[in-house]
């Protein structure tokens, strides 16, 4: 789960990570008030959207004084900000963060995330701060220093010291780096993060170390034990159907095609999207209805699929392991009746209780196109979607 910069900074500051003073604003008047309260000669007005690349897209603007802060906020709030990471439509700016300025002596990079190769959280540090770290990794990998954190000890002070010296920090700055880095790593663990990134980590002219930007991604699997973090979710940053799916604890990703899929199991769901593509069609979504879905959950999933206006055909592909085919069938029938099924529905069932499931569908008097295997199901779905498109044209 992603959170905003202002939320990330608030969380990090609780762990003793140095951040600049700032206040959130949702109107230009609030932004102006924030600037007055902060009383800094220069303030940054920063669009609060989840996507990165805000700076280059005009989403971060410097202002001298409250009046300029007001004007920048007015220019940003309510507009669509398009960055390299938002996609062409951009993201609506609903909030801005007004932050005191600072005088930058140098910019570093400090981040941590899981390294799947080692199964350890790894700290990455670089003198190349304020730029896209993926670019640095591609062009100058030797400029990224790494430390794999041993879960037994957490990030050790000596490891942080080694990084500080390798980054070219000396004296006070090097000493400050150690508690900064270890506080960041404590935050990572305590929050159950999957990414904590400070880019840039700024050394100010006054010799302080401060997080000029902060990005945190949280482990979705751990949110159940962090209800206060789960509450930081911003539905405005989510695609509407994906948001709805989350409410029902469904795994759903919106795509751009016209064949909706409901599948049990992520691998098979991806495989189903793949085979639709191979058959010349375009999947409208990824949906894993899961291993123990109740009839209600299946019905909810079905309704979400059908709420996508671009969908012309639906493919249900269920191979029952934990998922029982009769439960799926009852869910489909219930949902179809509730929503009023008007689209071609191809259903392929296999596995636990398959005959029960097929019987339920057959007796339901719904207009279902049965398929015996995966290839057959894909062909029928693609064909149905094409016919529907042709009729609409």
């Amino acid at each position, binding site marked *: 789960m992603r959170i905003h910069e202002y939320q990330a900074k608030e969380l990090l500051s609780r762990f003793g990570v140095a951040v600049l003073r700032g206040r959130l604003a949702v109107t230009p008047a609030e932004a102006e008030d924030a600037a007055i309260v902060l009383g800094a000669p220069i303030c940054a007005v920063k669009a609060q959207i989840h996507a990165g690349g805000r700076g280059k897209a005009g989403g971060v603007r410097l202002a001298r004084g409250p009046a300029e802060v007001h004007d920048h906020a007015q220019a940003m709030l309510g507009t669509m900000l398009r960055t390299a990471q938002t996609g062409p439509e951009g993201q609506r700016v609903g909030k801005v963060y007004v932050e005191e300025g600072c005088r930058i002596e140098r910019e570093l990079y400090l981040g941590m995330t899981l390294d799947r190769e080692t199964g350890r959280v790894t700290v990455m540090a670089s003198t190349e701060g304020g730029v896209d770290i993926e670019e640095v990794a591609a062009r100058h990998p030797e400029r990224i220093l790494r430390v794999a954190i041993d879960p037994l000890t957490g990030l050790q002070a000596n490891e942080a010291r080694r990084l500080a010296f390798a980054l070219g920090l000396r004296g006070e700055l090097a000493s400050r780096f150690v508690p900064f880095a270890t506080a960041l790593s404590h935050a990572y663990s305590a929050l159950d993060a999957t990414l904590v990134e400070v880019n840039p980590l700024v050394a100010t002219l006054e010799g302080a170390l401060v997080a000029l930007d902060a990005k945190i991604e949280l482990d979705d699997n751990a949110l159940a*034990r962090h209800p206060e973090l789960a509450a930081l979710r911003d539905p405005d940053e989510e695609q509407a159907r994906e948001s709805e799916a989350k409410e029902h604890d469904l795994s759903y990703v919106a795509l751009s095609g016209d064949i909706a899929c409901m599948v049990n199991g992520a691998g098979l769901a991806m495989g189903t999207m793949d085979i639709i593509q191979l058959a010349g069609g375009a999947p409208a979504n990824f949906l894993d209805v899961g291993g123990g879905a109740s009839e209600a959950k299946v019905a909810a999933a079905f309704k979400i699929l059908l709420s996508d206006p671009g969908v012309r055909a639906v493919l249900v592909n269920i191979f029952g392991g934990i998922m029982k085919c009769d439960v799926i069938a009852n869910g489909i029938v219930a949902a179809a009746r509730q929503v009023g099924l008007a689209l071609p529905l191809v259903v392929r069932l296999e596995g636990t209780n398959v005959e029960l499931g097929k019987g339920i569908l057959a007796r339901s008097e719904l207009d279902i196109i049965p398929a015996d295997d995966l290839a057959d199901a894909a062909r029928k779905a693609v064909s149905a979607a094409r016919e529907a498109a042709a009729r609409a044209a």
Partner: protein
Amino acid sequence: MSIFVDGNTRVLVQGITGSAGSFHAQQMLAYGTRVVAGVTPGRGGTRFERGTPIFDTVADAVRETGANASCIFVPPLHAADAILEAANAGVSLIVAITEGIPVLDMVKVKRFLQDRPGVRLLGPNCPGVITPGQCKIGIMPGHIHRPGPVGIVSRSGTLTYEAVNQLSARGLGQSTAVGIGGDPVNGTDFVDCLSRFEADPETEAIVLIGEIGGSGEEWAARYIRTNVKKPVVGFIAGRSAPPGRRMGHAGAVISGSSGTAEAKIAALREAGVVVCQSPAGIGEAMQHLLARRPARTALSGAPSSRAERRTRTAVRAASGRRAARAEGPSKL
């Protein structure tokens, strides 16, 4: 034996009284798996179906029944602890079915297990492991499996059943089907399974099912190139997946430019794996591959042919990788 489990494996089920645990323990017993105990803290002293005793702790269960494998159906926030409990009790194979375990819990589990080499963890977020006709530990539908010569290793659950169904329909049974699971930090990887399949006399060919995210398939490809002579068919799910999105499995994310399906497919093909375009083509691909191989004698796997293979391998290694790729018709 096939790999990991056989008719002698004695299984305990952690979380046996929960809804998933009880359903699947019943299914395992019905399949013929030797489910010798269940564990639910607080329900020790009671019994499950067919008289299976339930214990408060894994240690009690192991001491009283000699269980040597565990199947874990414990909810996500307590599952890591369940794995640790089984490891502490000396269980040699821990099959963690649970999906949704926090990543940092698994980072700690992995660290813990580093010091316990006698314990193998499979999963988490996996369907389990089955040696058809002998032992089923997990949630896979037993009835689609048949004993036979094809070993399967997969990150997916239901996509594996799809492959098994296709193979069984063509009379190609399975030696063992292993689900390594969809999480980014897990206990057993592709290479662990490939090495065992290669050494297993009952396995003649291997199916590898991967997906986007991580580099497990790339490591598998490297291993196959130098260490696996048996024919391998592969499928990688997620060619149609967009980058940067988690596609269900916590481990199924294309991160920047790494973890793409294309890169995995290329690496596996370079290693001589026959990679199917379509998930519907796995059975057929294996059928063709096995049909094209030189006929094996009934003594397939007998010591003399293994020694011959070792000599050939040594010669190949000496002549370099290029020679190794050119030889071996099963790699075309």
